[in-house]
């Protein structure tokens, strides 16, 4: 990180890693939403993502690096920003000149980070165990191409997990609402381009997290019941 000494360069890396995560989010959403429409398609796509060499050994490490980098750099910048103030104001009316979401990216980002810990425990760690400890990655006999839909639905059985996921997606939406459009400002795009992108970024920030909420609620309310009581 010490290589990135320039404030603008640091911000540019935040913007680029953020945009990369936005692309990942869109791909993740597309696959997950297929579980609502067609469980077999969801199984098919999940199996491809889970056992394709390029995805597993090239794209996945890049993704993990992107996530870790975005969070670590975010915290570094936040600490630096706090230090830059020095003595805090007794009265600071931040709401008079900037939105809550833009001023509290560290809170929304922090909630998303906590959510990711749960999400990794829920899905990623069991996947890694199955593939690399039990060995399904290297033993075709252990592969079950139809397990993904059922596993997903079971996760959304307990109502507490659905509540946690829904709340996390609300914070994700807030984070994206400022962060997505903000990245284009950091990358120095011209006003005319930014203005035309603004509605797209804001729509994305609302529609994608809302879609994830729909997936969680749908499986909790409908699919889980069907699996338990077919």
């Amino acid at each position, binding site marked *: 990180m010490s290589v990135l*000494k*320039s*404030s*603008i*360069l*640091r*911000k*540019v890396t935040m913007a680029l890693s953020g945009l990369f995560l936005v692309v990942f989010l869109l791909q993740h959403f597309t696959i997950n939403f297929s579980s609502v429409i067609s469980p077999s398609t969801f199984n098919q796509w999940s199996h491809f993502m889970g056992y394709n060499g390029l995805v597993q050994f090239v794209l996945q490490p890049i993704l993990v690096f992107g996530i870790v980098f975005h969070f670590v750099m975010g915290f570094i*910048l936040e600490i*630096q*920003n706090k*230090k*830059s*103030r*020095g*003595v*805090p*104001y*007794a*009265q*600071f*009316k*931040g709401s*008079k*000149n*900037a*939105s809550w979401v*833009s*001023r509290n*990216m560290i809170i929304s980002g922090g909630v998303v980070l906590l959510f990711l810990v749960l999400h990794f425990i829920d899905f990623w760690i069991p996947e890694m165990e199955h593939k690399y400890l039990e060995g399904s990655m290297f033993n075709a006999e252990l592969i079950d191409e139809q397990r993904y839909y059922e596993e997903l639905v079971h996760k959304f059985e307990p109502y507490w997990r659905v509540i946690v996921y829904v709340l996390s997606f609300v914070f994700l939406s807030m984070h994206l609402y*400022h962060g997505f459009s*903000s990245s284009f*400002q*950091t*990358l*120095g*795009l*011209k*006003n005319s381009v*930014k203005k035309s992108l603004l509605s797209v970024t804001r729509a994305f920030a609302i529609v994608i997290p809302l879609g994830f909420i729909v997936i969680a609620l749908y499986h909790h309310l409908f699919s889980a019941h069907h699996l338990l009581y077919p």
Partner: protein
Amino acid sequence: MDIKLKIWRQKNATSKGKFEKYALNEINPEMSFLEMLDVLNEQLISSGESPVAFDHDCREGICGTCSLFINGRAHGPDRFVTTCQLHMRRFKHGDTITIEPFRAKAFPVIKDLVVDRASFDRIQQSGGYISVNTSGNTQDANAIPIPKADADLSFEAAACIGCGACVAACKNASAMLFVSAKVSQYALLPQGQVESKRRVKNMVAQMDEEGFGNCTNTGACEIECPKGISLENIARMNREFILG
């Protein structure tokens, strides 16, 4: 109108400051904010107390000397207004007005409400100029045709008075709006373009060295800037920096 004041008092740069409370009666609502502070200081001097130190010069909103964080906002509650152009009619009888210095690690307090903004001068010295050999045969700037749109944008950027309200208002104490205004005013004109790459690199490096925070695009600086300097300048500076 009667008002109460809660003012940051600090003897010098090294001492620990604290808020002091004062009451002022029969203040004329047509007074400027700084005239109100003049009245307070006259009272303090006549009672043998130390007057409140605050920066001011032109009192016409053009020199960038006045500062003050008034009731939680840089230059007070109004847009496009410096503290010297703020009037007491903006407040109500019985109000308590909190006055603090502009807060930033790069703007250390010298005394009371006066802060050292020499960090802005050092940033300016690191590249906020054009190298012209003033031999007596220098070409008149007006002789170079410049598109009207560029001239207007450059002029708008040059309207920055370097008061530091952008730093004061930013939750990160970032100086990006100030630096970007200076970078833009030259980058948009042919005379400035010659040194544009070196300028942006040096000015940003100096800004970082001074200890200003990072821009998180909240837009607070643009709202609080008394001269309405646009965030578009920050995008232009980023663009110049990345392409440079």
